[in-house]
């Protein structure tokens, strides 16, 4: 069966009916919650950045690295105690888009697959969810950087 198979009229009719009875996602409420939760996480990030600037030898530019690590650490604690999924249900993208969500994806997969052993379970599945982020990040960055370098070589 090809996925592009056109729907029959019966299917179309049903989907119309189904659409009517389906509970819609509360878009506005979800967006507000995502805004608040996401903003809140970034605010914590900003606090941590300032903390690193004040007390360690990090400049504004370099402080984002330890900030990210600290946030991932917080994410580990929340994930381990089963709180991050509650935050995720509350905040939606607000908790998925910040780097804590990336951490959560990695850490939850690691915890989940511990039962299959350290090598095949944890090692093999740790990037089950977050792997695509890395793959697409690296590949798109490669393309972008390559084009930019070539332009600079030609233009500059």
């Amino acid at each position, binding site marked *: 069966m090809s996925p592009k198979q056109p729907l029959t009229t019966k299917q179309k009719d049903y989907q119309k009916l189904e659409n009517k009875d389906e509970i819609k996602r509360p878009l506005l409420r979800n967006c507000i919650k995502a805004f608040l939760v996401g903003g*809140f996480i970034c605010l914590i990030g900003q606090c941590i950045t*300032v*903390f690193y*600037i004040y007390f360690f030898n990090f*400049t504004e*530019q370099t402080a984002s690295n330890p900030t990210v690590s600290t946030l991932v650490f917080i994410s580990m604690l*929340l994930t381990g105690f089963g709180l991050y999924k509650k935050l995720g249900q509350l905040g939606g993208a607000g908790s998925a888009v910040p780097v804590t969500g990336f951490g959560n994806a990695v850490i939850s997969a690691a915890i989940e697959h511990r039962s299959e052993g350290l090598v095949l379970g944890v090692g093999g599945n740790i990037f089950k969810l977050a792997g695509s982020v890395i793959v697409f990040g690296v590949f798109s960055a490669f393309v972008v950087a390559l084009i930019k370098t070539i332009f600079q070589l030609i233009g500059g």
Partner: protein
Amino acid sequence: MSNRKAMKVLMVILIACLFITTGCMDTKKKGDAKWALFKTTNPNPAVLNETSEEFAFSEEIHKFVLSFPEIYDAAIVVGDKQVLVAYKVKQMQRFKMKKIEKKLKKKLEKKFKDQNRKFTVSSDFKIFLEVVELNENLKDEKYSRKKAKKHFKKIIKLEKEKT
């Protein structure tokens, strides 16, 4: 119900962060350096070789830097061969920070060509903080000038490795 519990944990983390940031400040930084990032300090420019000419020169730089409309706060330390200019850019102008940095450096070099010194300009909060701290230390007569020079070099090094 359970969401509230999650929120509580987050609140605790945030409060803990705030406490750490504010709490530690009292012990480590003194004077203006304590709040240097949060309020406009505009400290008097400091010089490493304390002669009246140097003071005048530093005052001039300070005024010049502040004449830029985008800049609202500046801390300056004048060294033997180098001048360290740390400044803060108004929030809405921060998009153009790189341009401002270039412009400022160029104009400073042009205006003070005869001085034959190297200008190190930075909008980085960390550099600003360090400059203010050095400034505070220099106010103290007893503070070892040797240490001050060391600190000065350290800041320039920090600025260089930034990128």
